[in-house]
């Protein structure tokens, strides 16, 4: 029913825009990753693999990447442990309060992410809220220094931030489970535990995969929480990109790292898409 002109009119503007402001920049980044910087801080447009070689040769780069993945993995697990039971509770036990509680999970997403990371900093610091509280009730004599400027602080903060992201797709998946399947399972004599493990959990796997992907990918690329709360031992891969962009002025090396991250993320998205398809029941 839509004419050619209509289709062209809705397709061309976004297509052109996205090509100019997304596709070309990403390709340009790919080009940059083969270039280098001269002594006088200008970009040398000679094509070679030196940047990628440096990523393999210098320990700090791949070690930081591995650490980032380890932090992201922990954030993912904790976000699922927070999000799944909560989603289950809302979907199956919350009754009429469901919608209200759902909104309550969403609201923190509207609070600035920077501000929430900052709030954790004021809680965990050596004269922060938690330490002074512990001393106030005489549980500790000296501030616990490990709370702030550690991977622990980064994992805690990122879990706080990404729990709603893990929750949302899981909740959607649980809401889509036909309730008569659950009833049938009960009627046929399954215990609540069996019903959960054999009916509900398998049917909610696509939601879990989507939630885990969000939590992992978004925390993997985070650079604020590590800078605010991570200290030297909590530095993540994005922090290196940011410092290469700024003080070090080595855009080409930063581009090489970014491009590796891009490949990693796109690869993960493909895998999670395939997993979701494999486990979806419709």
């Amino acid at each position, binding site marked *: *029913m*839509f*004419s050619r002109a*209509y*289709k062209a*009119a*809705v*397709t061309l*503007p*976004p*297509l052109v*825009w*996205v090509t100019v*402001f*997304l596709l*070309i*920049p*990403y390709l*340009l*980044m790919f080009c940059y990753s083969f270039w280098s910087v001269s002594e006088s801080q200008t970009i040398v447009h000679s094509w070679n693999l030196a940047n990628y070689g440096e990523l393999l040769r210098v320990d700090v780069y791949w070690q930081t990447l591995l650490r980032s993945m380890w932090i992201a993995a922990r954030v993912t697990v904790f976000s699922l442990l927070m999000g799944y*039971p909560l989603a289950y*509770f809302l979907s199956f*036990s919350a009754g009429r309060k469901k919608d209200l509680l759902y909104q*309550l999970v969403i*609201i*923190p997403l*509207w*609070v*600035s*992410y*920077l*501000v*929430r990371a*900052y*709030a954790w900093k*004021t*809680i965990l610091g050596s*004269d*922060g*809220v938690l330490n*002074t*509280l512990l001393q106030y009730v005489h549980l500790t004599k000296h501030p616990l220094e490990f709370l702030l400027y550690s991977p622990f602080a980064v994992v805690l903060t990122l879990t*706080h931030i990404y*729990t709603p992201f893990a929750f949302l797709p899981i909740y959607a998946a649980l809401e889509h489970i036909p*309730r008569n399947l659950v*009833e049938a399972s009960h009627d046929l004599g399954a215990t*609540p535990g069996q019903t959960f493990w054999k009916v509900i959990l398998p049917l909610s796997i696509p939601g879990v995969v989507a939630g885990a992907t969000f939590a992992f*990918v978004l925390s*993997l*690329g*985070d*650079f*604020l929480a590590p800078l*605010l709360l991570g200290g030297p031992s909590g530095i993540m891969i*994005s922090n290196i990109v*940011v410092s290469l*962009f700024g003080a070090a002025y080595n*855009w080409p090396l930063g*581009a090489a790292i970014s491009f590796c991250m891009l490949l990693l*993320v796109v690869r993960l998205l493909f895998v999670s898409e395939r997993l979701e398809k494999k486990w979806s029941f419709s």
Partner: protein
Amino acid sequence: MELLVSDTRFDSGSRWLLAHAVAVFAFLYLPIAILILYSFNREGVGGFPPHHLTLDWYRTLFADGPIWDSVLNSLQVAFAAVVISLMLGVPAALALERAKFPGKAVFRRLVLLPLILPGIITGLSLAMLFKVMGTNTSLLTIILGHGTALISVATTEVFAGLQKLDRAQEEASLDLGANYWQTFWRITVPNLKLPIIGAALLIFTLSMDEIAVSFFLIGRDNTLPLEIWGRLRRGITPEINAVSTIIFVFSLIAIVLWYRLRMRNEADAGAEIAQALEGDAA
């Protein structure tokens, strides 16, 4: 049925689920509560218990020129980002739903990529584009960055709305002699009112909070998150808590308004259906 399931069969487990849900909500809201509480604390952030509640920090805040400049900058950026991403995101959603063109699958992935890709990658690649083009970074480059990255939000929201849309109305409009332009403004857009407003609110909030892309595209004028970011590195004061509290209150108002708008529309739809059913019965 849901109530029955929760009351009789999940009873032993549901007490644990309830306790878990309470704990997760505490985890999600604790930092926000502390943030707000300490914006009134004369002694500064941290230190338990808070005493000498005062509005001094709000007074300091209202006298703080650079913060309000950055708020104005952020508002400009957010408004412009909403306009750009809707102007391109709505047609992109229509194109994805209604048109076939070569490269459509790539186009879809590309549009949605900034949603999940770490912001620093999009930011760095756009910085490279502007560098190559010889464009100086300024609020304009941030606007282009936000507008482009957030097309993804507009497209997903509107696309979801389109799939629920009944095409018969558009068809009728075209059959009755309206042209595509008239049909778009009089039928398509009004029917997509809710997803468009929802997307606008979301884009606005995300832009007001955005830091990863802005970080690479910032010129002389700061946006609010970057202004806060700069101050956090110099040390923390409850002034940050105060400005965050104010933003939180505005976000809450936006959520409540949005929620009421949606409820009213759903109620309208419900009434229409009820009316139609009654009409049938009569």
